């Protein structure tokens, strides 16, 4: 099927460029967030990249708080944070709050969204929500082996074009596709591979008028805020946490990073 498969699975291969750093992360060049639905193999991807042995298990919700680790790739130090799995970013549960706060205020350079290939539609609900708040993201289409077993094929090039971010198919349990994932994370972080996430949310004309007003005000108060549109939408939806972030100026830190 794939002529390079043998090489990719060979544990010696990534050693050339990849140094797993475990938890030894004093300073780093890039911060990577690992997000996704529960039980899509985020922790397996995390372990494969960092060489840590974060306990993985076949049931949703076992990553309780966030786990951190690091790796060195192409002479750059990456710090990677494994976020709890969530189905949405509406912040209705503790897990969702941890994940959303980190993506909003932790200012990761790259967000890797791990999705289960066999259940793409449901996973895309979260992917689209994450793309609303982040500029630089990579979709890791994991558990490809299971998808193949179930007779599911995915046109990754088309998916990438639809979403506006790179898509990397992997089977992390078997180590398949991890090299491509590493290279993509690296390239997105360095800016050599650009992302322009598609933002679909549309609504009535009342909404777009209201949005224009609010976005204008937000951009004036928080110069350099990159996702003003998303913040405006959350304000209109009455999201308490975002209202609070505007009130106490925490939102400024978001603007600062991009300004």
């Amino acid at each position, binding site marked *: 099927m794939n002529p390079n498969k043998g090489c990719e699975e060979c544990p010696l291969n990534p050693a050339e460029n990849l140094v797993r750093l475990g938890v030894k992360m004093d300073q780093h060049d890039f911060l990577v967030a690992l997000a996704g639905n529960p039980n899509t193999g985020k922790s397996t991807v995390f372990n494969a990249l960092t060489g840590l042995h974060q306990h993985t298990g076949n*049931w949703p919700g076992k990553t309780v708080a966030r786990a951190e680790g690091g790796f060195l790739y192409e002479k750059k130090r990456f710090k990677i944070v494994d976020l709890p799995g969530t189905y949405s970013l509406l912040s209705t549960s503790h897990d969702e709050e941890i994940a959303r706060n980190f993506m909003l205020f932790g200012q990761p350079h790259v967000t890797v969204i791990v999705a289960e290939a066999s259940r793409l539609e449901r996973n895309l609900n979260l992917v*689209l929500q994450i793309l609303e708040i982040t500029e630089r993201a990579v979709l890791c289409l994991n558990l490809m082996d*299971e998808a193949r077993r*179930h*007779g599911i094929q*995915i046109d990754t090039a088309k998916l990438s074009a639809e979403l506006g971010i790179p898509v990397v198919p992997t089977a992390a349990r078997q180590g398949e596709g991890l090299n491509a994932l590493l290279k993509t994370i690296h390239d997105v972080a360095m800016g050599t591979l650009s992302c322009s996430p598609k933002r*679909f949310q549309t609504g009535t004309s009342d909404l777009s008028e209201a949005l224009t007003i609010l976005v204008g005000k937000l951009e004036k108060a928080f110069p350099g805020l990159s996702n003003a549109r998303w913040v405006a939408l959350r304000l209109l939806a009455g999201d308490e946490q975002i209202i609070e972030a505007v009130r106490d100026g925490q939102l400024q830190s978001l603007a600062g990073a991009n300004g």
Partner: protein
Amino acid sequence: MVEKRSDRERESILSTAASLRWEVGNDLQTSLMESIYQNASRISDQVVIADKSKARLAWEHRLEWLLTSRWTGFPIMFLVLAMVFWLTISGANYPSQLLSGLLIEQLYPVLKTFGADLHLPWWLSGLLIDGMYLALAWVVSVMLPPMAIFFPLFTLLEDFGYLPRVAFNLDSLFQKAGAHGRQALSMSMGFGCNAAGVIATRIIDSPRERLIAMITNNFALCNGRWPTQILIASLFVGALAPAGLASLVSAAAVVGITLLGIFLTFATSWWLSNTILRGEASTFSLELPPYRPPRILQTLYTSLIDRTVFVLWRAMVFAAPAGAVIWLVANVHFGGSTLAEHLIDLLNPFGVLIGLNGVILLAYVIAIPANEIVIPTILMLTVLSSGTPDLGHGAGVMFELSNNAAYMAVFKAGGWTLLTAVNLMLFSLIHNPCSTTLYTIYKESGSLKWTVVSALLPLLMGFLACYFVATLWQL
């Protein structure tokens, strides 16, 4: 000035947003989510090419139905758990004997000779070798083999995807008890080791429900208590039945105690959530993951490192000083007899009142660090107090016996009856958790108060249960 201006600016954003919210209507959230769902569906339709014939394998459907349906889910669950226990108990037997043969029968005399060669004073060699070393040797040989079998088996079930189905089956029962459905998982872990079970409660979000899960984890009969249950059941309960049925009857007694433990988990959770930990059970969505072939080697590695070695290390840290204490109470004399004998006399009236005796109570006090050393301590203390030293290894030395007849001789000398045996089985299930577990509860909850509750509540319940049985018995 600048600060003031930006404050005003922010407040003005918020008030504008509040007034605009009226214009866009309050179904904005819903319509936004709908648009996301629509786009997700549209994109996935475009990029996914599914071979419908293989969509979801037929065997998965059938398996799902078997494991979670009303009529087959529970029997299969009990069978799987019984299988795991049986594999653990029978599989651990041989390596346990091997280890105790090595550590106790071979290394122990060598150490004693070595101590004598060094001219160690008798009390120092007693404290170090008869006390600390033997306690450690016991904990390792009794605890290591079952844990090394139980945890990997459990992790394999987890990896395969069976555990979420267990939680799914038990969810409604826990909900009725006012607890979290995921408590089913921490309870199952508790059958291996309560300390590990308490750590597993981390998967429960709500602090109230997590405390309930921690406090009641003790009712899941742990590894250290299985040997006690099996030994006493086969000596006293099994002996009541005709020879052919003896092993079946004693196995049924152990299963009965286990089921009583599960019942107490629900009852106590219900009681807690209606009294001191009042509150609604929180809902949670539990997705049943696909079945995945377990990765054997990785499972062995993580379960050995994360669970077995971790738990064993903690138990050893607590067992060594306990061994010293056990040796001391049996060897410090005053007023013509040992400290242990004084304490046994002190505890005996209360012990007899609740259908036990002073020896058993004292053993449970000084063997708090690990349930594994309860039976060896009981044997040693019984021999000490009944004055039949020819049965054991000498004063203050813990020992285990090679056959049931020898055990019976010691227990007969200690004046044991069927009531003593039944109540010991009850008390072994319902008493304070071992100090390893208590320490873990303290670490996890960060609260001294709830640690004390976790210790005293089951102890009180155990006293009451034993008293109740003893009173009924003597009618």
